[in-house]
């Protein structure tokens, strides 16, 4: 009997420790040096905040159906949409959040796309169906709801953007959420 109680207590302790690992370090960072950024000015300001903690507020326009690992924020209209991904301490972005005003604290991430990346992505899409989901190119730029033709069109559009940018890469920004609050 005593043994059983000890085993139960150990299990509970194990769960408690594992569930309580929200990072004091990150919490400290949020408090001390959080930059504020808006949806409207996101694209212009993002390059200044790469890998730094920022706070952003907006209305959730979409959450990813495939596990809720991504959501998109808009503000007033949908001309600018900011991608938010779940960090290690966030379980998911539930569909119930769509339409809610949220405040997100997170780390701004940059993803670069160059010609090599586009070629690899294109090759993956042209492979048989079984290979589509195992590729590495279904991240920020792609979406699992898209058809193969949608993705090929998107790749062609990126090629065009890359050409007209005059640079060797395109930058895509997203925020890896550390925590978020629903405001309404």
């Amino acid at each position: 009997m005593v043994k059983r109680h000890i085993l139960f207590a150990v299990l509970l302790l194990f769960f408690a420790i594992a569930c309580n690992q929200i990072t004091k370090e990150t919490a400290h960072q949020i408090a001390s040096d959080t930059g504020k950024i808006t949806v409207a000015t996101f694209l212009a300001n993002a390059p200044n905040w790469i890998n730094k903690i920022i706070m952003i507020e907006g209305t959730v326009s979409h959450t990813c159906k495939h596990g809720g690992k991504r959501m998109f924020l808009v503000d007033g209209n949908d001309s600018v949409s900011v991608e938010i991904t779940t960090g290690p301490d966030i379980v998911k972005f539930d569909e119930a959040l769509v339409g809610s005003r949220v405040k997100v604290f997170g780390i701004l991430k940059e993803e670069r796309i160059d010609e090599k990346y586009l070629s690899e992505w294109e090759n993956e899409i042209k492979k048989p169906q079984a290979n589509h989901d195992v590729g590495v190119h279904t991240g920020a730029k792609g979406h699992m709801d898209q058809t193969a033709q949608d993705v090929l069109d998107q790749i062609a559009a990126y090629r065009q953007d890359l050409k007209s940018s005059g640079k060797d890469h395109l930058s895509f920004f997203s925020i890896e959420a550390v925590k978020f609050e629903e405001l309404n």
Partner: protein
Amino acid sequence: MILRRKLQRWNNSLHRDLGYLFFGMTIIYSLSGVILNHFKSGDLKHPDYSKSYWEFEVALPPGGKVDQAYIDNVLVVADEKGNYKSHIYSDSSLRIYLTTGSITIDLHSGSAFQEKKKPLYVIKEFNLLHYNNIKKLYTWYSDIYAVALILLALTGLFILRGKNGILGRGAWLTVLGIIIPALFLLFYT
């Protein structure tokens, strides 16, 4: 002979105890698996919500100006008064977010498209576990479950002896169970 009996007893006990211990996980993964299977194949629009859609017509906003009074009118037409959350709009469309879904209005034609959603309680929580959204300790627990499934499968082969055991009927069924997925791989990939 004694060793064989001992092994048989261990085999059966392991199969029995793992079966009891992981009964809950097996139900969770199998129910959620059916839902995710049909979501992946396109039969379901969302794994956590049931969704329905319909279209109707609404009057265009007076002077093309979208304001709260216009939105309130649309909500009355759609019988969604009290379910308003927020809205966004552009020159060509207005989207009203509701606690029960959303309404998208074409501001040129007045045609409205409504999506209604209802949470699939319990299944939603099962999917959360199946997708391993929780991460952390659950990653290890679900790995243990996966190993336990292998052990359940292996020990299951040796539960019975005789004509229904692995050297009789069991052998045919086991081989068939391996051939079926192999055939799918062969013909569909």
